[in-house]
């Protein structure tokens, strides 16, 4: 959803704006690399609550509010984690779209590929925070099941786009 990207590039908060300035001076991949490096320096890798509660080795690492989080490898849109929702839930009042596109992303913790369902949350004005566009194995719109340049608010009361969640469907090779 490049339209969302460009819109949000004008509406982001200061933190996102700083990130974007880096992005504009460099390529997206170099940008992600730089962002990753900054985060390592800041030791900003929160573990998932489940992992912490069980005191078990983490199943995921990284910042779910950052575009370089492993689940977002084929996400195009804005992150619901920055908008009052989570990786699997829409923000209050937004309606989950039952129809989604999928990506296959590598979880660096267990080195396994997972099938990720990207579902748009709809029916509210655009969130306007933490835009993200990554295109691993992204296909053109004439092959829509893996295409992120589509407004995926289908089967909802309103097609208005709010943000996107990234739900693990299962191990890709399973």
């Amino acid at each position: 959803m490049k339209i969302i990207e460009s819109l949000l590039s004008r509406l982001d908060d200061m933190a996102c704006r700083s990130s974007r300035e880096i992005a504009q001076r460099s390529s997206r991949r170099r940008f992600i690399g730089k962002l990753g490096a900054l985060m390592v320096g800041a030791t900003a890798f929160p573990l998932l609550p489940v992992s912490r509660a069980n005191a078990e080795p983490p199943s995921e690492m990284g910042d779910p509010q950052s575009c370089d989080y492993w689940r977002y490898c084929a996400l195009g849109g804005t992150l619901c984690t920055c908008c009052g929702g989570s990786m699997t839930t829409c923000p209050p009042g937004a309606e989950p779209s039952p129809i989604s596109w999928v990506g296959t992303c590598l979880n660096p913790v267990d080195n396994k590929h997972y099938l990720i369902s990207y579902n748009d949350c709809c029916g509210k004005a655009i969130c306007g925070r933490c835009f993200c566009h990554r295109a691993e194995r992204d296909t053109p719109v004439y092959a829509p099941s893996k295409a992120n340049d589509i407004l995926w608010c289908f089967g909802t009361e309103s097609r208005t786009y709010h943000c996107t969640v990234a739900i693990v469907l299962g191990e890709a090779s399973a």
Partner: protein
Amino acid sequence: MQTGGLKKARVSAMMGVLLSWGVSSASAEIAPEVMGKSTMGEPTPTWLMVHDAVGPAYVFDSATGDMQGLLSLSGFTPAVVVNLAEGRAYAAESFYSRGVRGVRTDVLTIYDLPTLSPVGEVEIPQKIAALPFPQYIEMLDDERHVAVFNLTPGMSVSIIDVEDQEFVDEISTPGCALMMAVAERGFLQLCGDGAVQLIRLGRNGKEIERIRSDAFFSLEDDPVFDKPVQTSRGWLLTSYHGLVYEVEVDGGEISISEPWPMLSEADREADWLPGGGQLVAFHQEQDLIFILMNQDGEFAQDSPGTQVWVYNREAQQRVAQIPLTQDGTNLFVSQDEHPLLTVTGVDAQLHIFDVKTLKQVRTISEVGVAPGLLQGF
């Protein structure tokens, strides 16, 4: 006496100043004015519409940088088609009765170009595909029928008769998207199985013919971008890895050229690949292809380009490289003798280049909230 003379001189000088003020004041007096309306001039090849992410299309002249007007469009409108001779623009639009919610209405709106105002609308199925794709709407060669692409995510095409201002039909096109106009009320589509599909309409706008090519590209290995551009003979397709295909229709036959590579071995070793949003433009008379390139590696097909590469289509050779000061997402080239290339930058400005000198000649700023898709008239 001397003092009196000075006084007289001063008084005389002051009167002169006052007199001159009075004269100039009288001559500069501005007559009372009445508020009026401007009308837009006749578009030239250097004029373009710049679609903002939130809906409106700004009209600029890339030759001067001056804004000419604004077309208010819905936030779901993908693109517009223009009939210059009729002074009309047509836009697929989607509206909710309460802004982001409420009752949905989809229409094809007919805009008058001189006033950039709606003069009619035709209600169409509530299925229009959103997001800015130029080939999500197409004017067929009879200039009477407009095709609007639907995505639900089932794929279909709505046909509208703009002369009678009525919806004609919805044509189901499973697995095939976009519309690329060809002769005799026809349009081509790109399909997920690596083929193209030709659909032809009768005089009444109803489908009368449908044929499909053999598959000629692999979706898995090297898909073609969903951003075809029209050439003088047909349509030009570019693949993720930089292969160029040309598709033509001759009578009832679809012909697809042998692909040729845009990238040399050295280019590939340097990680160059096509990338961007509206990443290709074509100049008809000069037979030039313009394409955004980046070095961001695999899966960077949507990432902005750092350079524009220029190819001669017939010779299948690169003739120029234009480094960009700001990475670019969209391209537009004016179809005139001295073409100007417009690039939408990631800095939300338009960067205009003289194609002959390859130099940047101007920048246009404050182009809406987030400028994207570029279209000519």
